[in-house]
């Protein structure tokens, strides 16, 4: 499986957020999406799953399920936890297991893996931010989908939970999955690839909290290339 983006551009509210973003990520690889606040990290993730329109460029998935859109084969862990406060922990997770999954998935084991099995009957309204986050993460474990899109996945998690999320990510990669993660900090495991989002559409200077931070998508660090032109994907996947 290989997810390829070529020359993606994003416009929101009439403003160009990014342009000329290209990357390619294969099974078992983690792509770290980096950039300053407002550079479009979340927009890029949402674009991959089809929640933001592709203004220009192409997204393609090779060796995925040709019957399904990319978003239908992906898990999206956004800033919001998609939990209903009046439903219990178990009911929340069971709903997403039924809605996103195909068969009857057992939710007991994933709940235990995120450490919420003792709270299963508590309404989600009483959960802390970190516990809500862990319940969202359990969604990724309960339904198997090959692509994970994680937006600041470590936020609100304590050290133990961060470590177990890293374990889940490692397991997903080992099983041949793909992970795209937008993050400022370290993820706890080496990113096979990185993409940097700048704020304008010309190539970006490398060290960049300062002024000259413009740029489409280039790799700053020793990490493998991203902006390399990828072979034109055939047929499958989304057209802009």
């Amino acid at each position, binding site marked *: 499986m290989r997810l390829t983006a070529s020359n993606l551009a994003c416009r929101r509210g009439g403003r160009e957020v990014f342009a000329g973003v290209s990357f390619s990520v294969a099974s078992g690889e983690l792509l770290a999406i980096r950039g300053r606040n407002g550079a479009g990290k979340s927009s890029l993730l949402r674009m991959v799953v*089809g*929640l933001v329109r592709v203004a220009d460029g192409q997204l393609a998935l090779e060796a995925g399920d040709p019957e399904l859109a990319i978003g239908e084969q*992906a898990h999206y862990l956004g800033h*919001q936890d*998609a939990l209903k406060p*009046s439903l219990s922990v178990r009911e929340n997770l069971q*709903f997403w297991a039924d809605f996103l999954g195909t068969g009857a998935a057992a939710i007991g084991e994933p709940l235990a893996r995120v450490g919420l099995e003792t709270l299963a009957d508590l309404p989600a309204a009483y959960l802390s931010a970190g516990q809500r986050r862990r319940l969202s993460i359990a969604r990724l474990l309960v339904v198997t989908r090959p692509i994970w899109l994680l937006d600041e996945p470590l936020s609100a998690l304590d050290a133990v939970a961060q470590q177990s999320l890293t374990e889940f990510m490692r397991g997903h990669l080992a099983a041949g999955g793909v992970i795209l993660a937008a993050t400022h900090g370290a993820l706890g495991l080496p990113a096979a690839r990185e993409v940097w989002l700048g704020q304008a559409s010309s190539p970006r200077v490398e060290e960049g909290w300062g002024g000259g931070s413009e740029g489409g998508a280039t790799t700053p660090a020793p990490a493998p290339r991203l902006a390399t032109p990828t072979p034109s994907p055939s047929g499958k996947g989304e057209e802009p």
Partner: protein
Amino acid sequence: MTALAAMLVRDMRIAVRVGGGALMGVLFFLVVAAMVPFALGPDLALLKRIGPAILWLAALLASLLALDRLFAADQEDGSLDLILMGRAPLELVVAIKGVAHWLTTGLPLVVAAPLIGLFLNLDGPAEAALVLTLLVGTPALTFIGLIGAAIAVTLRRGGLLVAVLVLPLTVPVLIFGVAAANAVSSGPVPFGTPFTILCALTLASLVVGPFAAAAALRQEME
């Protein structure tokens, strides 16, 4: 459980729990309709004549009450993103949410209507006709309302906008619903004629509502 059944169960659970909208609608309906006799005075003939219209108006407003939260709540907590990413067709998901909304707000109105009918001096046949028209007509109100709820999904405090968008579209339902309910007691028209048109309006809204609402949702998520 399939995706659609899961959605039906979830929406109904949320509606009947604390903070859900299920009881609000029927309480509003009871309060509004019960106030009318106090405002008009004990003129039994007048109450009998305008009773069906009052009950239909109260039902219309009550069914709009919780409607603006139908998609907005899912949008605010991020559920709508995942719903759009799901494999179930959005049109069917929207229709199922409409069904859940009707079962928790529309159906209780139909059940409560005979009680309030007593306040308004409706006799047996008139009550039966009223309940039948409400049973057939309230799904149309919900499914037309889906469109307004979907259009207003990204707006904060979109409740009034939903009402402004939806109320004009419900005028035909109101006209034929009240005409059919009145036909039994007073009208020159037979019951069947307006009632058949009311059924047609409901069937059309069951088809058009989900498609229009799903299209609006896709457009908004942009």
